[in-house]
C-alpha cells in the first residue's frame, strides 16, 4: 500500500520502495510548517472521523504529515489542499485501523475524551452529538466513509473528492448515497441503544 493519495498529480510509490528515513532536508521547510499549522487540526479531525481513536490521533496525524512531507513536491497548488490531505489521511487511517483490528462499531463513550471541566448544556449536547457521529461513522463501510466525510462534513465538491480518491464521478455519488443510508441507520440504532436523550 502506498501512503500517497490516489491522485493523478501524485507519483504513486510502492511502500516497499519508500526508504524508512526521509530525504536529507536539514529542517522543515517553512511552507510545510505553515501547512501543518493551518491544516493540522483538519487532518486530526478527519482521522477521528475515519475511525482513528482519540488516543492514537496524535500519532497518526504525525504519520500523515510525514507522508505529506515526502510528497510535498507533488502537490499542485492549483488544486484544493483539503482533498489532497484527506487522501493521505484516508490511506493511513485505513492501514492504522487494520493494524489495530478495529471493530466496526464501538459504544459512543469510547470515542471522545470527556472534558473534565463543567460545560454548558449546549456544549454537552454538542459533545454527545459528535460522539454519536463518530460512532455512526464506524458503521459506514470503509470505502464509502471518505466520500461521506468529505462531502457531507467537509463540504468538498464531488468532483474534487473523486479526483482525490481517483474514482469515477458516478461511483462517488453512489458511494455517498449508500454511505448516507448506512450512517442514518447507525444513528437510529445508536440512539435507540443509548436511550431517549441521545
Amino acid at each position, binding site marked *: 500500500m502506498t501512503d500517497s493519495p490516489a491522485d493523478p498529480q501524485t507519483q504513486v510509490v510502492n511502500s516497499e520502495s519508500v526508504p524508512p528515513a526521509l530525504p536529507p532536508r536539514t*529542517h522543515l521547510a517553512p511552507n510545510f510548517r505553515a501547512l501543518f499549522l493551518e491544516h493540522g487540526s483538519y487532518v486530526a479531525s478527519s482521522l477521528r472521523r475515519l475511525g482513528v481513536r482519540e488516543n492514537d490521533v496524535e500519532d497518526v496525524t504525525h504519520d500523515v504529515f510525514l507522508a505529506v512531507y515526502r510528497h510535498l513536491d507533488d502537490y499542485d497548488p492549483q488544486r484544493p489542499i483539503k482533498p489532497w490531505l484527506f487522501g493521505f489521511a484516508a490511506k493511513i487511517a485505513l492501514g492504522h485501523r487494520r493494524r489495530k483490528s478495529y471493530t466496526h462499531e464501538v459504544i459512543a463513550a469510547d470515542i471522545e475524551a470527556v472534558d473534565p471541566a463543567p460545560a454548558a448544556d449546549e456544549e454537552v*449536547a454538542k459533545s454527545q452529538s459528535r460522539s454519536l457521529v463518530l460512532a455512526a461513522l464506524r458503521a459506514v463501510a470503509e470505502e464509502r466513509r471518505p466520500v461521506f466525510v468529505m462531502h457531507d*462534513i467537509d463540504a468538498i465538491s464531488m468532483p474534487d473528492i473523486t479526483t482525490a480518491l481517483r474514482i469515477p464521478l458516478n461511483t462517488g455519488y453512489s458511494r455517498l448515497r449508500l454511505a448516507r443510508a448506512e450512517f442514518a441507520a447507525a444513528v437510529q440504532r445508536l440512539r435507540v441503544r443509548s436511550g431517549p436523550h441521545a
Partner: protein
Amino acid sequence: MRDTLPSPLPPSLAALLDAERERPALSDAAQQRILTRLEATVNWPPPRRGWLTALGTFAGGLLVGAALCGVLLSGRLGARQPKLLVLDSPPPPPPVVVVVHAAAPPTLVQPPAAESLAHRPGARAERSQRNPPALPDHEHDTELARERALIETARTALARKQTDVVELLFRHAQQFPQGRLSEERESLLVQALLQSGRVAEARSRGERFRAHWPNSLLLPVINAALQAIP
C-alpha cells in the same frame, strides 16, 4: 449527471454533522508535540546505501548461519572442540538512528550569532566540521534520552498546571547547557512562566526565543501564548 446528484440531508442528520464540524481544533500542546516529533523525524540521517547494505547484511547472515550450522553439527557428532564462533568478517553493524535536533543552538545563556546555523542549507555538515562531537554516538543517545525524559516530565507538569515546571526546566538548563532540546525547553519555559504569573520574564524569554530561533516550529505557540496575555 443531474439524476445522480444527492438530495439534501434530513435535518436531524444535518444538525448532527453541524456539531461534528464544530469539533475543537488540536490543542496548542498537541500541535507542539506533533511538530517537535516531525522536526526530529525529518532530521533523520539519510538512508544508507541500499544494495550495498543489503548485500552486507546478506553476507553477514550467511556467515553467521554457516558458523551456527558448524557448531550444531560438531555438537551432534560429539566432536570435543571448543565452541567458539570465528567469523571471517564481523556482520554489519545494526543501523543506528540518531535523532539530531538541528535547530538547537549552543546555549541560551550566551546568545549565538543572529543567524541560526541550523536554518541554512548544509548547516549540519558545517557544524559537525567545526565542532566534532566529543562523545561517542551511544553516549549522545543516552544524553538525548535523559534530556527528553526531563523535557517530557516538564511538558506533562505544564499540562497539569503543576507549580514545579519552571524548576524542572531550569534544571534542564543546568544539566544540559548545550542540550539539543534547548529550543523545546525555552518554548515550555515561556508557557510555564506565563502560567505562574511571571509575565515580564515570559515576555523577555519570548523575545530571546524569537532572536535565537526566528524560524522555529514552536514560535507560533509562543506567540499565541504571549498574545493571550490580557
